[in-house]
């Protein structure tokens, strides 16, 4: 009767189905503890205690970012009963339509609003909140919440401090288990880089709730509660006064200033202009669109992200490499007849100055031709088999100064710039189809060289230290906050430290030779400060030349090394040198005696020259 045992097969199928169901139930009930925890969470309610966020100090103990109290109004749509909309609107200083609109919106997405409610108004002033507090019993479902927000006593370092804002779903997903909707987190700058230290640990109080979501009593008399742990304070290496002064000098100019303490690698100031005002940081939500739409991109941190040709300041690097390679001696003289002539009628131009000149004078007067000879001698050196090998040897030297790679600072989003190798040119021209004259513009920091202002400041610090640098960093070790060991280690270049003093001498003469002697940076001279500097004028294909200057002071015990880069600022001596030297004067003397120059720099407006995207 039972045709070919089909009932047996059906019976086996029934068994398989039963095993399938029971196996799934078994895994839910016996293997997975998650559901038991979820069940507890369903019947208990966690009131989150928010920690105060760590304070950010400057190097002298000035508060850069502190906390103050703000009040939010939360609504739990499920608990709202009929109420006098007009009265509530009057108390909260909003229109009745606003409240109605919000409640309608919440009603639509009611299922996604948890028992904690949803924030209807943010950052109310204290008076408004007090008014609400007195009458809140009339408005069930509405409650206030106290929350710490950031405040900024000085307008210094908007870009590097970064902002704090409420986390979005995407952010929560990227940091699994760390944040919940409604939490705040640092999104950019130091706030983001040191988020783990600054945020502290949330605490909670646990209450039991009944089926109608009403809180009954503390769970186990509060024995399971956890208090919040405040965030750690962070001390930065920034000098608030210098930072603020740099921002003032750079206003209405596009560019960047980076100042480093050579003996430690600590960043004293990191100006990116145009930047973000701390007032905008405090209420980033309101200003975000405005900042994002600004054609000059204030969010873009030029100090570590903009790659520029370094211009003539790069001659220092080529000079040092020449010395190390033995193809250059300080007393060597080269002629310059308004430039360097090569090939059939080609010329790399130069400005008028005495000829021939030696190495010190070549730095002081920034002779282009001199460095064409130097570079040619470096890469055409017979000890290297070919131009390609010569260039790669040069590349290795340059990279040892930190160029062409990320320096490894603790500041986020640093970029690497770029230094060409033989491969770069093999690709462009073909193997063996280029020579030292093809790449001659590298001698004066043009062509395929790109560096960030941070790279240039680091070069300056390296020269100030006579041959080594510390990785630039922005966080100082302080109580409870460690910095990585690598920030305390000297980084040596491939150039012997013996050679650096010869270059320093040239830089001193560039600034301190007095007017009329041919020094390119006499405008940066400050009595008794012994500033050593080097100007640069970098070609900008999109308009006027960029003005570049690096300097350090005092010569024999350097306290500050600084790089200034002003887009479309013309010669190095026009803007970059005055701005950098004023900052040195401010830092070392505390006051400015060259008030006329200071005034002129602050007032200068180059924005019209800058081509926007």
């Amino acid at each position, binding site marked *: *009767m*039972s*045709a070919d045992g*089909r*009932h047996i*097969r*059906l*019976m086996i*199928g*029934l*068994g398989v*189905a*039963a095993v*399938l*169901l*029971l196996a*799934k*139930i*078994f895994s*839910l*009930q*016996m293997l*997975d503890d*998650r*559901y*038991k925890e*979820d*069940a507890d969470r*369903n*019947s208990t309610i966690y009131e989150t205690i928010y920690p105060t966020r760590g304070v950010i100090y400057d190097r002298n103990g000035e508060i850069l970012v502190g906390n103050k109290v703000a009040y939010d109004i939360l609504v739990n749509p499920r608990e709202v009963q009929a109420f006098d909309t007009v009265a509530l609107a009057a108390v909260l200083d909003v229109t009745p339509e606003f409240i109605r609109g919000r409640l309608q919106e919440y009603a639509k997405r009611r*299922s*996604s609003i*948890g028992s904690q409610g949803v924030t209807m108004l943010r950052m109310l002033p204290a008076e408004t909140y007090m008014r609400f507090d007195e009458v809140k019993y009339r408005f069930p479902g509405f409650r206030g919440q106290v929350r710490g927000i950031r405040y900024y006593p000085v307008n210094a370092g908007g870009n590097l401090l970064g902002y704090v804002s409420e986390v979005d779903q995407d952010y929560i997903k990227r940091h699994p288990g760390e944040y919940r909707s409604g939490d705040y987190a640092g999104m950019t700058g130091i706030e983001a880089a040191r988020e783990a230290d600054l945020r502290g640990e949330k605490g909670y109080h646990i209450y039991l709730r*009944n*089926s109608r979501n009403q809180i009954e009593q503390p769970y186990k008399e509060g024995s399971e509660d956890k208090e919040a742990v405040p965030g750690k304070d962070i001390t930065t290496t920034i000098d608030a006064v210098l930072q603020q002064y740099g921002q003032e000098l750079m206003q209405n100019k596009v560019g960047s200033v980076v100042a480093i303490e050579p003996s430690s690698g600590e960043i004293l100031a990191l100006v990116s202009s145009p930047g973000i005002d701390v007032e905008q940081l405090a209420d980033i939500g309101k200003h975000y669109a405005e900042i994002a739409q600004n054609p000059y991109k204030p969010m873009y941190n030029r100090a570590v992200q903009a*790659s520029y040709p370094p211009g003539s300041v790069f001659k220092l690097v080529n000079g040092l490499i020449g010395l190390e390679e033995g193809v250059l001696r300080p007393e060597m003289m080269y002629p310059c007849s308004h430039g360097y002539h090569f090939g059939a009628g080609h010329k790399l131009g130069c400005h008028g100055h005495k000829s021939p000149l030696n190495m010190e004078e070549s730095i002081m007067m920034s002779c282009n031709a001199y460095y064409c000879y130097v570079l040619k001698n470096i890469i055409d050196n017979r000890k290297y088999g070919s131009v390609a090998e010569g260039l790669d040897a040069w590349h290795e030297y340059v990279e040892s100064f930190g160029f062409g790679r990320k320096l490894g600072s603790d500041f986020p989003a640093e970029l690497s710039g*770029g230094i*060409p190798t033989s491969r*770069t040119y093999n*690709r*462009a021209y*073909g193997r063996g189809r280029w020579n030292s004259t093809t790449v001659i513009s590298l001698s004066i920091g043009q062509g*395929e060289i*790109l560096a960030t202002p941070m790279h240039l400041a680091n070069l300056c610090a390296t020269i100030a230290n006579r041959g080594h640098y510390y990785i630039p960093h922005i966080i100082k070790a302080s109580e409870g906050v460690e910095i990585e060991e690598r920030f305390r280690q000297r980084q040596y270049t491939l150039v012997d430290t013996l050679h650096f003093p010869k270059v320093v001498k040239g830089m001193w003469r560039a600034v301190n030779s007095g007017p009329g002697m041919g020094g390119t940076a006499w405008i940066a001279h400050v009595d008794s400060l012994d500033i050593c500097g080097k100007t640069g004028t970098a070609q900008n294909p999109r308009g006027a030349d960029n003005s570049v200057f690096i300097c350090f002071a005092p010569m024999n015990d350097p306290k500050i090394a600084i790089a200034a880069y002003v887009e479309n600022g013309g010669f190095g001596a026009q803007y970059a040198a005055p701005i950098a030297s004023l900052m040195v004067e401010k830092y070392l003397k505390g006051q400015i005696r060259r008030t006329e120059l200071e005034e002129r720099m602050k007032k200068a407006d180059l924005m019209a020259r800058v081509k926007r995207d």
Partner: protein
Amino acid sequence: MTDGRAHTRQSVDWWLIGTYLVLVVIGWINIFAATHSSEPGSLLNFEYRAGKQFVWILTSLGLAATILYLIPPRLWEAACIPFYVFVLGLLVLVIFVSSDVKGSHSWFDLGPVRFQPAEISKISTSLLLSYVVSQQNFRITRLKDFLTAAFVIGLPMLVIVAESETGSALVYTGFILVLYRTGLSGWWLGAIGLIILLFISTLTLSPYWSVFILVSFLLPCSIVMGPPSRRRFRILAGGGFVLLMGLLPFLLEALCSLINARMDGLSTRVWVPAADEDYNYFWSFLLKVNPLYLFLGLCFAALPWLGWRAYKYRDRFLAISLVVFIAGVILVFSTDYLFENVLQPHQRGRIEVLLGMREDPAGMGYNVNQSKIAIGSGGLLGKGFLQGTQTTFGFVPEQATDFIFCTVGEEWGFAGCLLVIGLYIFLIARLMIDAESCRDKFTRTYGYCVAACIFMHLFINVGMTVGLMPVIGIPLPLLSYGGSSLWAFTILLFIFLSLYRDEKKYF
């Protein structure tokens, strides 16, 4: 006379009736547990659902006795055609006169009582199907007879879908198991399983893996079923092909990441020399090769040859396999269309939640998530009667009706689940054994129909509460709160008991 009476008592299957009673009482207790916090009162307070269920149980027992002792068993067979037509009429009528209950139009509202004709339709369909199948010259393998049977099942199914009660309609697919028992080829079951598998894999994995599943199912089957010549060679070649296609996406991906790494290296450079543009152009062509088209290209290239082979060897299975392959590929490519345009948004949502395509514990996934929490928190022995925090505090929706199994899971733990599912499996297995022992084809087929209905309800409902199935609102037989469902299953079951006793009396 005394002889006949004794015979009667023996031939009633008291095991089935006992299991039925135990399940009904378990249902009653758990309905009370699920509702006691919002509906205080005793088990017998008729204001509330636990009390009402008690009334439904009593009336069901009355119904059961009536069917068993008063209605002549042969009436069912005789009246099955008019009964079927009458219920079908009700099914159509309800669309026009019913009130809208959660988007579906399937309830008759008769004052205090509501009932769903779809419940009764299971009985009438079972009876007519048994009638059709038990005809003397019925042969399921004959196309005309197969279509007749399919028509009997499909007609009420279609009307129920029109009532927007897709869940109830799904239960009717269980009748295919009955047809299998009466001689339908097992390949039909395989084909249906394959369609479901392809649908799911296209939605969750990718069309590539769906085609892969299709090929790795058909290829071995047709090799095994095909002519025996050079079989070893064909097994090696076929296995090699399947293995290669299984690795193809990974190989392509590895190649692409190599190329990408190289191109990234170029794009971060200061500038890219012209020579590199050509390089990029060549390799980016490789990046655009879609493994799916490569795979399908190979398959379709082999089709004419396989077709010729099927013709040459008169290999009917291979020919069918080729048709199934083409149909399967069409299904894979139309899955997205079917999913987006044929299913309704809430059904789409439920399937997406089940397949893990959407994480939504507060919205669509709320029911399932809460249900899993309730069951999962039960542990081995459960939290005890009335002690379940989830079911008591109302976190699980529909906890007395469709989600009644949650209460069992939370308060009685794995032990309770094991007992309840064990009882159901016993009930179904016992039904099958009883049916198998019948010589009358009508009774036997009907027994299988009852077993199939209960099985489908059990699997879909429990599967839903533990997250194995999408949320389909059908009750758990005999346990869920509700008169119309309890009555329907009582009638369904006791008609079989009555037929079974009758059979034992005469044979």
